[in-house]
C-alpha cells in the first residue's frame, strides 16, 4: 500500500512532465501592423485604443451581445450561449459563438484562446475580472443599466459599441427604427384609447412554495419604454439604482388597482410563470381587479427584458398587439 502511495504520484508527475513538454504556440516574435486607429472613452473613464474596427469581439453580458448582433457584428465568444438562445430570441445569434462560461464568472482561458480584438463587458463584472480582461485585449466597459435614464443608457451603449466596431451607420438606423417603432406603438395605443393607461410589468419565480414577484419600476428599461408608449407605470415600489427592479410578493400586487398586468416568462424555465401556474388558485391573485377583468398579458418568450433596441421593439410590438387585441 505504501509503495503504491509512493509510486503513484511519482509516476503521475513523471508522466505529466514528459507528456507536457513542447509548446502549444510558438514563442512571440513580430509586431503587428496597424491600420487606422480608434480611440474611445468607456464607462470607466478609461481610454480604449483599437488598431481598427474590431471584428473578433467577445460579449460578457446578453445586452451587449444583442447590441453586437444588431449592429451586424457576430461575436466570437458569448457568455452562457444556451441562456441567450432561451431568453433573447428577439435578436437571435447568426453564428455559433464559443461559450465563454457564466455571465458572472466568464472563463479567462476561453476568452484568451479566442484572441479577440475587443471584449465588451459591463459594470456588472467584478473589478478584478475586468482588470484581467484588459490584459487579454482592449476592453470596452459599458454601464450595464442606469435607472436615471434607462433608454438613454441603452442607446449610448449601442453608439459606443458601434464606434468600436465601425458600424455607426448601422447604429443610426437602429436608433431611428427604435424611435419609429415606439412612436407607432404609442399611436396605436392612443387610437385604442389606451393613452395614459396604467401598466404594471413584472416577472416572477417560485422557490419552496413561495412566489416572488419582481416589479419593473419606471427606472427599468421596460418601464421607460412603457412611458414612451404613452402608458403610466403603476408600481409604487422603489427600484434599484441600476436596473430599476424591486421585489414583492402576491400581497404587494393588491396596491395596483385596475391596471394592465404584463409579464414575460419562458417555457424553458418551469418556475418562471407563477402567474399562470402557482398563483392560478390563489385567492389573493383571483381577487385582484386586473385578474378579474382579464387584463393579465403574457408576452412572447425570448424578449430579453434588459436587452437592446431589437428586444425593446419586439416588446413594444407584442405589448401593443396584446393590449389592443
Amino acid at each position: 500500500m505504501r509503495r503504491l502511495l509512493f509510486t503513484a504520484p511519482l509516476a503521475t508527475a513523471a508522466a505529466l512532465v514528459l507528456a507536457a513538454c513542447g509548446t502549444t504556440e510558438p514563442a512571440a516574435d513580430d509586431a503587428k501592423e496597424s491600420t487606422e486607429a480608434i480611440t474611445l472613452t468607456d464607462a470607466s473613464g478609461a481610454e480604449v485604443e483599437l488598431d481598427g474596427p474590431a471584428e473578433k469581439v467577445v460579449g460578457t453580458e446578453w445586452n451587449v451581445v444583442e447590441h453586437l448582433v444588431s449592429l451586424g457584428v457576430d461575436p466570437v465568444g458569448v457568455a452562457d450561449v444556451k441562456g441567450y438562445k432561451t431568453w433573447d430570441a428577439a435578436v437571435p445569434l447568426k453564428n455559433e459563438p464559443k461559450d465563454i462560461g457564466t455571465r458572472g464568472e466568464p472563463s479567462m482561458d476561453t476568452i484568451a484562446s479566442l484572441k479577440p480584438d475587443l471584449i465588451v463587458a459591463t459594470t456588472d463584472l467584478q473589478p478584478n475580472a475586468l482588470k484581467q480582461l484588459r490584459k487579454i485585449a482592449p476592453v470596452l466597459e459599458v454601464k450595464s443599466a442606469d435607472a436615471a435614464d434607462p433608454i438613454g443608457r441603452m442607446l449610448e451603449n449601442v453608439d459606443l459599441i458601434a464606434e468600436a466596431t465601425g458600424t455607426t451607420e448601422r447604429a443610426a438606423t437602429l436608433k431611428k427604427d427604435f424611435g419609429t417603432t415606439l412612436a407607432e406603438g404609442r399611436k396605436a395605443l392612443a387610437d385604442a384609447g389606451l393613452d395614459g393607461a396604467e401598466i404594471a410589468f413584472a416577472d416572477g419565480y417560485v422557490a419552496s412554495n413561495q412566489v416572488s414577484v419582481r416589479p419593473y419600476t419606471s427606472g427599468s428599461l421596460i418601464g421607460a419604454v412603457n412611458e414612451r408608449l404613452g402608458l403610466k407605470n403603476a408600481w409604487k415600489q422603489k427600484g434599484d439604482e441600476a436596473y430599476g427592479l424591486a421585489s414583492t410578493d402576491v400581497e404587494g400586487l393588491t396596491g395596483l388597482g385596475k391596471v394592465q398586468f404584463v409579464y414575460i416568462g419562458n417555457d424553458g424555465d418551469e418556475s418562471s410563470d407563477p402567474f399562470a401556474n402557482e398563483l392560478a388558485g390563489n385567492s389573493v391573485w383571483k381577487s385582484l381587479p386586473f385578474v378579474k377583468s382579464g387584463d393579465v398579458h403574457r408576452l412572447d418568450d425570448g424578449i430579453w427584458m434588459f436587452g437592446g433596441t431589437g428586444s425593446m421593439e419586439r416588446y413594444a410590438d407584442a405589448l401593443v398587439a396584446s393590449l389592443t387585441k
Partner: protein
Amino acid sequence: MAVTATPPTARPATVSSRTGAAAVTTALVLLVAALAVVDITQGTAAVGPAEVLKALTGRADPADASVVVASRLPRTAAGLLVGAALGVAGVALQAVSRNVLASPDTLAVNAGSYLALGIAAVTGVSLPLFASSGVAFAGGLAAAAVVLGLSGLGAGTVRLVLAGTALALGLTAVTEGLLLLFPQQTEGLYQWNQGSIGQNGFDGVLGMLPVAVAGIAGLLLVARRIDALALGDDTARGLGVPVRATRVTAVVLATLLSAAAVTLAGPIGFVGLCAPALARPLARWFRGLRRLRSAMPVAGLVGAALVLGADVLLRAFVDADTAVAVPTGVVTSLVGAVFLVVMAARLRGTGGATAPDRLRIRSRAVFLTTVVVLVLALAGVTIAAVLLGDSKLLLGDVVNWAQGRAGRTVSFVLDTRMPRVFAALLAGAALALAGTLVQAVTRNPLAEPAVLGVSGGGALGAVILVTTVPVAGAWGVAGAAFAGSAVAAVVVFGLAARGGYQQNRLVLVGVGVAAGTTALISLLIVLTDPFNAAKALTWLSGSTYGRTMPDVLPLAVVLAVGVAAAGVRHRELDLVSLDEDTPRLLGLDPARGRLGFLVLGVLLSAAAVAAAGTIGFVGLVAPHAARALVGRRHTRVLPVALLLGAVLVCAADLLGRTVIAPAQLGAGLMTAVIGTPYFLYVLVRSRR
C-alpha cells in the same frame, strides 16, 4: 427561583413542578400567539391590524380578506408548523443521543433533505408535495443514518458533531454545485440554501400538517422510553425498554419532522438546535419539564416562537417589499446564532472532547516517505493546475512564459491562471497551518478557522469593505478580513475562555459565530447587492476567480511569517498541545505562547479568506490527517499539514475550473466535496 431550592426527591416538588410546567407552557403559548398575531398584520399589502381584525370577524372587503386568508395566515401557519416540527425534532434527537449538540442541523438531516429535493428538481421530475416530502425524508434519513452510523448513538459528542457538521457542509456544497450546474434562474439570483416561510396559499401547510402531527404524536408515544434511555443503556434495558428499537424509532420520527419542515419551507437554520437549548434552562427551574413528554411541547413552542419572532423582526426592521427577498432562514440563523453563542458561553460543565488521536510514534522513515510522496503530489497537482484548464497548455509554453517570450494567448492564459494557482496553493497551506496552530493551542480536534467562525468573521469584514468601498485594494481587503477575523476570534475565545477552553463550549460558541457571520454576509448582500451572485459565491463558499498577483501578495507574506514563526517554536507547540501542566513544570508561561499562536492562526485565516474567500474543511482535515500519518510532533506535523493543505485546495480549484468548463465551481465547494468523504473515512478508521 424558590423551585430550584426544593430538594429533588421531595413529594410536593412534583406537584409544584407540574403546575410550573403548565405555567411555562401557558406563557409560551401566549408568546407564540402574540407573535402570530403580529405576524399576520405584517406584509406587503396595506392590510394592517384594523383590516385583519375586520377580516377575522368577516366584515372586511373581500380583497383584504383574501390577503389574510391566502397570504398572511398560510405564512404564519407555516412558521408555526416549521418551528414546532424542528423544535420537537431537535429535543428528541438530543434526548436520544444524550448529546446537547444533536439537532437536524448538526446531524445533517436538513442538508440531506435539501439535497434530495435539489436532485429531484434537477432531474426535472415535478413531484406532488407529498411525494417530495418522501424524497426529503429519504435524503434526511440517509444523512442521519450515515452520521449516527459513523459516530454511534450516545457515543462521543465530538464524534457525532464532527461527522454531522462535516456531512452537512459536504451535502450543502453538493446542493450548491447542483444549483450552479443546472441554473433554474437566469436572472442572476443566488440560491441562499436558506428557507423561507412565505407560502402560496394553504396547500403546502395542509399537505405537511398530517406528517408533522404524525411525527409529533409518534414521539410523544415513545417519550417515556426515550426518558429511560437517559438513565443509560443498561439501566434502560433493565427497565425492559428496547433500547435499539426506541432509538431508531425516535430518529426516524425526528427525521420525518425535519423533512416535513424542509419540504414546506426549505432549510430554516438552527431552530432545531436552539429551541431545545433555550428550553433546557426552564427544565432547571421546573423539574416537570425534564420529562420528554412535557419538554417536547415546550421545545416545539420555543421553536415556533423563534421562527415567527425571526419573521416579525425582519418585517419590522426592513421595509415590507425588501423583506420578501430575505429568506427567513437567514434571520433564524442570525437570531439562533446569537442565542446559541450566549447559551453556550453560559453553559456549565459541558465536558471536554478527548483528543481522538491515539499517541502514535512513527519512525523517521515513515515521515520522510510521507513528505516525499506529498511533495511529488504537490508537484503533480501544481503542474496539472498550471497546464489544465479551458485551454490546455504544455510545459514549453510555461518555460516561454517564464522567460517572457510566450505568444499572446499563452501569456494571457498563464497571466490569469498563475495567480489562481498561487492563491489556491497558498490559501491551502495557510488554512492548514492555521488549523494546526488552533488545534494545538485548544487541544481540540474540532477547532478550525471555519468551524470557529474566524474565517466567517474575515469574510464579513471583507464584504463590508467591498460593499462600502468598491475600489478597495488587496491590502485593504486583507486588513478588513483580519479585523473581522480578530473580532470573531476575540468573541469566540473570550466567551469560551472562562474555566479553560472547555472544549464543547468553544466549538459551540464557534459554530454559533460561524453561522451568525454566514447569515450576516447573506443579509448584507441580499440587501445591498441582490443580483450579485458572484459576490455571494466568493464570500460564502470560496473562489479563486479573478485573482491577480497583487491580491495574493498579502497571503504570501503572512504565510512566510507564519511558517517561520511556527517552525522556530515548534517545540513550544508540542508542549502547549500536551496538557496544562507540563509547560508550567518546565518553567514556561503557556498563556503567552498560546496567545501568540492564536494571533498567528487568525492572521493566517484572514489572509487566506482575503485571497480566496471562505474555504472550509482544510484547516480541519489537513492537521488531522497529518497527525494520523506522522504522529504528533509538530516538527513533523507542520510540513505534512502544509503540504496536504496546499495539495487539497489546489486540486479542488483545478477540479472546479475544469469539470464544468467554461463555467466554474468555487474551490470552497470542491474542498467540501473532496474533504467530506475523506473526513468520514478518517472518522471510521479512528473508531477501530
